[in-house]
């Protein structure tokens, strides 16, 4: 229900902002693309629309805030919240001999994260007595109305109406007070209006996540500081990747330059390449335990094949004219290796390194989810066991930001070290 609402709101904002921008924001006529008469089908004419990107990100936070009742989103944008506060309804019972009587149930609904405080009411007159119920928001509560009544369900009494609306065992009803139904044993099941907001346990509001971030950055989590957790994950990735590159690149070169090496390692590499590193986690744990060694070996294996294959592709991709030219200029085999083949393979190796870093980052988080005493993955795993959704979300966001950061850095390094990539 909430999911469908969110989707509808999302699509509405997508289309609405599109139309608004189309009609009210004029295309800048200065660039060349603006002069093209045909843009549909011309991929080069499609540049990412900055406004769309900004609206997209704002929309995500807006919906997030709105459907979680965030303080950061003005109240009028909030999705209707669940009912909180005091309410009451009147139920009517009918005893076995046809006598009817009414009584009122006073309900106190506590907001998300608050404790529902029990309270007493005066039972009043008649065979049915008034009741008091305390309950949390967005839940349903089974009300044993007859605990204080003079005639109970055992005596054959049953609820026939709520606030004057007839109700039966097969007939649930909806009144302004909420939704009512009868349980199999005849008790009243009552759910006050739920509204459209999410409970923090499903999705905490953004400020809760930021609050957690500040808190954990400050005090740490599970005996380690936040930086320690992230640092461990990063350290594992970098160590595993470096070992993988250190062995994988020479292996790839050897496979590119020697038929014996290629023949020997091809079956191994071709077999290992499609095995997802995640599938190796159990074996690595059995062999090396859950300590650092196991994790680094896992990441080593994750990057090894990628680096070997990219180095081999880098060697195979050398334009034979370059090698011939170098021989004709008097270069030795070693010099050709050092001055032609190695630099020529750098663009491929960088592409491989970017892929490998991405895979390693994903693998380390997964490995920490399985077993670890510190790390980004471990943080969210432990938090999820305690249903600390805000920490889980915080962890996911941090993992995403770091993964993105790694890729940006790799691309920067690539532009700096192999500026000729794709330009020859």
């Amino acid at each position, binding site marked *: 229900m909430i999911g469908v609402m969110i989707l509808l709101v999302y699509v509405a904002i997508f289309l609405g902002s599109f139309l608004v921008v189309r009609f009210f924001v004029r295309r800048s006529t200065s660039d060349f693309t603006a002069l093209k008469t045909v843009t549909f089908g011309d991929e080069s004419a499609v540049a990412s629309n900055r406004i769309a990107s900004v609206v997209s990100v704002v929309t995500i936070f807006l919906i997030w805030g709105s459907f979680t009742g965030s303080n950061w989103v003005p109240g009028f944008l909030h999705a209707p919240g669940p009912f909180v506060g005091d309410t009451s309804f009147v139920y009517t019972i009918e005893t076995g001999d046809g006598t009817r009587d009414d009584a009122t149930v006073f309900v106190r609904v506590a907001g998300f994260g608050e404790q529902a405080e029990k309270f007493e009411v005066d039972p009043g007159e008649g065979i049915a007595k008034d009741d008091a119920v305390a309950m949390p928001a967005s839940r349903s509560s089974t009300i044993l109305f007859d605990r204080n009544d003079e005639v109970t369900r055992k005596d054959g009494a049953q609820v026939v109406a709520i606030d004057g609306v007839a109700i039966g065992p097969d007939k649930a009803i909806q009144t302004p007070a909420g939704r009512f139904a009868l349980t199999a044993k005849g008790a009243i099941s009552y759910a006050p209006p739920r509204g459209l907001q999410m409970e923090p346990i499903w999705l905490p509001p953004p400020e809760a996540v930021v609050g957690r971030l500040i808190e954990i950055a400050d005090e740490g989590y599970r005996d380690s500081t936040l930086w320690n957790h992230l640092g461990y994950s990063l350290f594992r990735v970098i160590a595993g990747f470096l070992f993988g590159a250190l062995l994988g690149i020479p292996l790839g070169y050897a496979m590119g330059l020697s038929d014996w090496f290629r023949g020997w390692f091809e079956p191994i590499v071709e077999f290992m390449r499609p095995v997802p590193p995640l599938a190796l986690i159990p074996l690595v744990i059995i062999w090396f335990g859950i300590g650092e060694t196991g994790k680094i070996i896992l990441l080593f294996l994750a990057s090894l094949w990628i680096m070997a294959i990219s180095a081999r592709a880098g060697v195979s991709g050398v334009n034979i004219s370059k090698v011939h030219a170098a021989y004709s*200029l008097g270069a030795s085999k070693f010099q050709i290796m050092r*001055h032609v083949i190695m630099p020529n393979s*750098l663009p491929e190796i960088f592409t491989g390194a970017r892929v490998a870093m991405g895979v390693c980052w994903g693998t380390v988080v997964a490995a920490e989810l399985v077993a670890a005493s510190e790390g980004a993955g471990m943080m969210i795993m432990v938090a999820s066991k305690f249903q600390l959704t805000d920490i889980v979300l915080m962890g996911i966001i941090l993992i995403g930001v770091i993964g993105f950061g790694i890729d940006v850095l790799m691309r920067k390094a690539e532009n700096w070290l192999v500026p000729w990539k794709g330009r020859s």
Partner: protein
Amino acid sequence: MSGLSIENISMRFDLPNGTAVQALQDVSLLLNKGELMSVLGPSGCGKTTLLNIVAGFLAPTSGQVVLNGHAVTGPDAERGMVFQQGALFEWMDVRENVSFGPRMGGQTEAQWGAQVDHLLDVTGLGDFKDKATYELSGGMQQRVALARCLANDPDVILMDEPLGALDALTREKMQGLVLKLWKETGKTIILITHSVEEAILLGERLLVMAPRPGRIHEEYRLPFAEMGVGGDLREVKTAPGYAETREEILEMIWNMEEEIMGRTEDMQ
């Protein structure tokens, strides 16, 4: 003896499907030191194969190449190559590219610096020596390739369609440069081209090859290269005999192409 001697070269490629291609059949040639020979011929007549054998990248099925009295067994600094394109090292700037040969030979900058800078100036690259090669135009890239080859001071320079990827105007300028460098350095040059005009303008000797099997069809000695040195190539085209030579060779190649077409039609 000094010179390049190609002796009864034959080359057969055995294809994986069991058939074989006779790329060259009994090709013999003698080039004296300092001669510039251009090679023409329809596509597939074995020009590149011949050049690769002289360069030492391919061993002929039979026959041998002898340079300065010793047989060629593999690539060597005495035989420089200029490729059509894509043979520059993008990870080095222009000056590093040009000085590649001397540097690999273990020379210090003190030894090669002056010569390399001179070549950069002669080829008009003086202002671009710190540029990356991929920032240069096609014509400039080919000048780098020429300078790189010359900086290594080879005895023979082998060029496989060195100007084939250039536009007409740049090409004309480069033809003048090739002639100038040839005269200045006195190198022995074999130049493969698809342009009949270029072959006539640049070739002191002109070799026309015929296909299937690849063989020498005709050889000319032409005066136009000498005329062109230091002069205007366009004027050379109006020199007596130029137009007739051009027509004759065009006719010859035209006939060869017709024959190839006819044969393929017969096969169908």
